[in-house]
């Protein structure tokens, strides 16, 4: 019962970040601010959803897999954010 409450709360927070991130991604005016909005949804939205599901997990093995999912998603998001941000700079401003 307590686990259910925790799950609903955490997943709801995760959904909030997904909605906010997507809204920013659609509404923001330029590439870099959109990238900023997107990384919020990536990291926090998925993170809270994963934590919400961890509260229901039936084995330590599943918990490990869930945390690995988040870790890999974080790494992917960090890498692509860097690469795309650099790519989207105007040619003269690239470091």
């Amino acid at each position: 019962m307590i686990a259910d409450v925790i799950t609903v709360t955490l997943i709801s927070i995760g959904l909030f970040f997904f909605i906010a991130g997507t809204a920013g991604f659609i509404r923001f005016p330029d590439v870099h601010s959109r990238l900023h909005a997107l990384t919020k949804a990536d990291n926090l939205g998925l993170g809270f959803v994963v934590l919400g599901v961890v509260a229901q997990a039936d084995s330590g093995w599943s918990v490990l897999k869930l945390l690995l999912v988040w870790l890999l998603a974080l790494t992917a998001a960090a890498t692509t954010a860097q690469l795309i941000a650099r790519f989207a700079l105007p040619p003269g401003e690239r470091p």
Partner: protein
Amino acid sequence: MTGFLYAAALVILATICVSMWRVLRGPTRADRIMGAQLIGTGGVAVLVLLSLVHRQAGVLDLALLLALLAAFAAVGFVKSQSADGAGDPEGES
């Protein structure tokens, strides 16, 4: 609980739908790839939720696989955008 999980998955599908508009519209290529990236994360979240709904072996493995490959489209993209498709995305302009 299943009802809530379905509802949550539906919400994420709705955000995926909105992001698809960016992929289709751009305006820049970076926007399109970022949209695909965001949808990929949404897809992983949907699968994580479905792993509780279905309680079937392998769904979590699938989420893991997609998280592992999440950066591939973007890496392939920045690579392909250099002059010959093999350039350094962090050095050349």
